[in-house]
């Protein structure tokens, strides 16, 4: 069966899909986050060097994954908006950008709380931290642009262009710990042996992946809820203008 993505670009069809997906996502995120938090805070072992402080990783790392994954999704929506002029792509940008900004802010804040006892400082201007801060500024800039014009479509287009330009920052964040000598540790997930043999033990990898999946479902709930609100807001604005 051929999957027709343009079918879901229709707001009415999207509303049907959202009503089907929401209960699934609520159950999945509740179960995954409940187990993930128990595993992260109670069951997983302390690190041999960092002790109990390593438990911040189970929130910090999934937030970093989310901040980049949401930005990538926004990048795809931005290209869809510029090329095919889909209104739903513009509304997705408006819905997802604040969720991505929240994940980025949380990544930076939890990183500071983790960095202070491990590095002896809240902040260093190394490549990983600086590129994440730049991502935060890009998020703030695009959110500001969406509401900077009288006509919302103009704001959406301007934000889409800035989002596309900002995509350059994603590989910089990902490879910053490889390209430059940084205080930030290398990726916990990758290793010299590649993705199939992660650098961390299975007892730590399990809560990391469960929290990552749980927060992804949770972020999807936020974005779908915000998108439904944006669809109604646009419908009200259009009917008010007539």
């Amino acid at each position, binding site marked *: 069966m051929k999957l027709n993505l343009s079918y879901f670009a229709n707001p009415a069809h999207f509303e049907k899909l959202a009503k089907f997906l929401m209960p699934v996502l609520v159950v999945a995120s509740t179960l995954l986050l409940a187990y993930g938090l128990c595993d992260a805070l109670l069951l997983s072992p302390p690190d041999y060097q960092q002790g*109990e*402080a390593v438990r911040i990783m189970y929130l910090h790392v999934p937030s970093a994954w989310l901040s980049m994954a949401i930005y990538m999704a926004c990048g795809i929506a931005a290209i869809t908006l510029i090329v095919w002029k889909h209104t739903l792509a513009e509304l997705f940008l408006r819905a997802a950008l604040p969720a991505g900004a929240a994940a980025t802010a949380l990544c930076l804040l939890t990183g500071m709380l983790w960095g202070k006892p491990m590095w002896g400082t809240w902040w260093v201007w190394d490549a990983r931290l600086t590129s994440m801060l730049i991502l935060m500024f890009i998020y703030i800039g695009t959110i500001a642009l969406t509401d900077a014009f009288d006509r919302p479509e103009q704001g959406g287009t301007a934000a889409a262009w800035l989002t596309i330009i900002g995509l350059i920052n994603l590989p910089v964040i990902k490879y910053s710990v490889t390209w430059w000598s940084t205080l930030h540790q290398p990726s916990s997930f990758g290793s010299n042996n590649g993705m199939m043999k992660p650098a961390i033990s299975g007892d730590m990898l399990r809560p990391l992946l469960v929290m990552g999946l749980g*927060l992804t479902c949770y972020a999807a709930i936020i974005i779908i809820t915000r998108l439904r*609100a944006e669809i109604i807001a646009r419908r009200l604005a259009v009917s008010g203008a007539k």
Partner: protein
Amino acid sequence: MIMDFDTFVQMGGYAFNVWGAYGIGLVVYGGILVAALIKLDRLKKQDAQKQENKK
């Protein structure tokens, strides 16, 4: 292996950092969902009001 209650609360001396991180997480992720639900509810009511006025 489950840790004992004191270690859980004190987090090996890193209680401020660990509980601070999870507390901020609760506020940020919880806050953005609550704000989204409030906005959706408000707009649904406005939309319903508009449909009612049309009739």
